[in-house]
């Protein structure tokens, strides 16, 4: 009976059917970069932009608009740090460069490492919120009981929607020390 089956199931068709699951397994993983690209383009999910200070044209400051920027700081469990912004809110004009300082203090006697992850709300403002300098661009290593003031300079570009009157910038520090 097996000979009968061999004749009527075309090999090329079987290969095609079997390639579908293989392709879709890969597609599951491809969704990860696709998703990141989509969020970068659309500013969904609070992903912020990064610009070089040299390309900023200070003459384009829109003084007619004022946006309130609020700063939040969070620490996840397992990281023995305290973390806070020195100024909790700031009134800014689109097109102008500002600096905010965050202070982080280690409460451990060991060297500890952390990485800050930013998030901007509302999502429609995220793609217009650009940073030139940020402590979140690199890992932070703190010696035992070290205190560090970390700068972050940002500019909200003129393309930001008129509906946005308030932007919240939140940083969360995650521990990079295993265990």
């Amino acid at each position, binding site marked *: *009976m097996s000979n*009968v*089956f061999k004749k*009527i*199931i*075309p090999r090329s*068709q*079987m290969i095609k*059917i*079997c390639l*579908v*699951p*293989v392709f*879709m*397994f*890969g*597609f*599951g*993983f491809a*969704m*990860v970069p696709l*998703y990141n690209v989509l969020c970068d383009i*659309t500013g*969904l*999910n609070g992903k912020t932009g990064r610009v070089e200070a040299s390309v900023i044209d200070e003459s384009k400051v829109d003084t007619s608009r004022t946006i309130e920027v609020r700063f939040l700081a969070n620490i*996840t469990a397992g990281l023995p740090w305290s973390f806070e912004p020195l100024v909790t809110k700031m009134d800014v004009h689109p097109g102008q460069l500002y600096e905010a300082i965050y202070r982080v203090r280690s409460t451990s006697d060991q060297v500890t490492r952390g*990485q800050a*992850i930013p998030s901007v709300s509302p*999502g*429609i403002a995220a793609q217009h919120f650009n940073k030139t300098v940020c402590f979140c661009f690199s890992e932070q290593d703190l010696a035992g009981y070290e205190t560090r003031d970390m700068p972050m300079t940002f500019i909200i570009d003129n393309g930001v929607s008129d509906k946005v009157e308030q932007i919240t910038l939140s940083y*969360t520090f*995650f*521990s*990079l020390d295993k265990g």
Partner: protein
Amino acid sequence: MTNATTTTEHVDHDDHGPAYGLTRWITTTNHKDIGTLYLWFAFIMLLTGGSFAMVIRAELFQPGLQFVEPHFFNQMTTMHGLIMVFGAIMPAFVGLANWMLPLMIGAPDMALPRMNNWSFWILPFAFTMLLSSFFMEGGAPAFGWTFYAPLSTTYAPASTDYFIFGVHLMGISSVMGAINVIATILNMRAPGMTLMKMPLFVWTWLITAYLLIAVMPVLAGAVTMMLTDRHFGTSFFDAAGGGDPVMFQHIFWFFGHPEVYIMILPAFGIISAIVPTFARKPLFGYSSMVYATGSIAILSFMVWAHHMFTTGMPVAGELYFMYATILISIPTGVKVFNWVTTMWRGSMTFETPMLWALGFIVMFTIGGLSGLMLGVAPVDTQYHDTYFVVAHFHYVLVTGALYSIIAAFYYWVPKWTGNMYNETLGKIHFWWSTIAVNVLFFPQHFLGLAGMPRRIPDYALQFAEFNMISSIGGFSFGLAQVFFLFIIIKTIKGGKKATDIVWEGATGLEFEALPSPAPYHSFNTAPEVK
């Protein structure tokens, strides 16, 4: 001499029945044996997952903590969902496909019989692995059947790795089963059976099989990412490393939404077989049924984020997913109206399979309507993660998918065993289940609208009455399925002999071209289809 021997052997080969003993079931490549194995496996899993549901309903019978710890309660809700979806509903449909597809298209067996054996025998190992996690330190997975990260990565018990490999095995089994279905339907139809002459159960299974090979690998990818996040230092879902837990939900529901159609499309096929038989009229709108099934399958890939309205999507995204979701009600509505129109002015009788099919049409539609409510983004913000959602998906999965499987059992069991089931017992089973299931799930709509969250072992006092009613319905429905086990065994052991056509209005090769019970080897020569 040589020729003569070969001929004799050949004849022997054609005539032989099943082997004896346990090895018959382990080594079998016969589609009927494998179908039976799948159906029994699904039934055992139904009782297992059902017993977990009994624990849940016992704990929720009264407010406060009575029987189980909250952590164990979470294990119960998680395992109930996983077992019912992957262990009961899906294998039951695969079992029905194994039994019925070759009989319906006039094929001697499935196209890939050895792979068929393998795809079944993976399942007991997968579920043994999954269930063994109860006996491990930290207990079984307790993060819900949707296993959202980081609950299933950073905060999960060690046994989660057993869950991950269990899901891998189930996925391999489903994909192999689906490849087999596609190969069988595309290549082994009897001469004259064109695609548009296939019974709808065959059509819906063909489309379901394509959904399976498309999305089960995505689920495998999701659990693989969980595995590497847990042990190999990747950060797919870990924000600390630049990943994103919300992405888990996107990947999961990209699998998850087609998955819910995997669990309902074969049901549509079963109802489309039963309703014409007992209305004694051909199915109304056959080709529109085929196209509706196809469009539901295609749309199912484009609506996944309606499970995620509360994750903070932009308005444009919410609007798109809302409209796309509600669009699915059109092909689904086509089906419901086609069934109703098939019955219109038919000479209807109400044997047990028809009762279950009618129960399906009425109650699946209730579940569909609550689904429409949940599909409306601003409304979903209120209903998300409440008992309203629980009521919705139990109406579509219990009174939908499970009812169709039970209907299929009563409809085809005379063809499988040669015995009629006891009509009185079957009717008692139907009315008992139908009253109980509504007592069980209908009050959950009210609980959800009043704000009771799902997956909690304790609740505020104002929810007490409806929970008690719901629990009583739950115990009763559970008992009704033990009664079903009695009916199944009684039917296999004996009963009134079934005629070859079984039902007065039955059509299709399985009734018209085969005796009851169907012989162990059927359609060794293909039938002619006009």
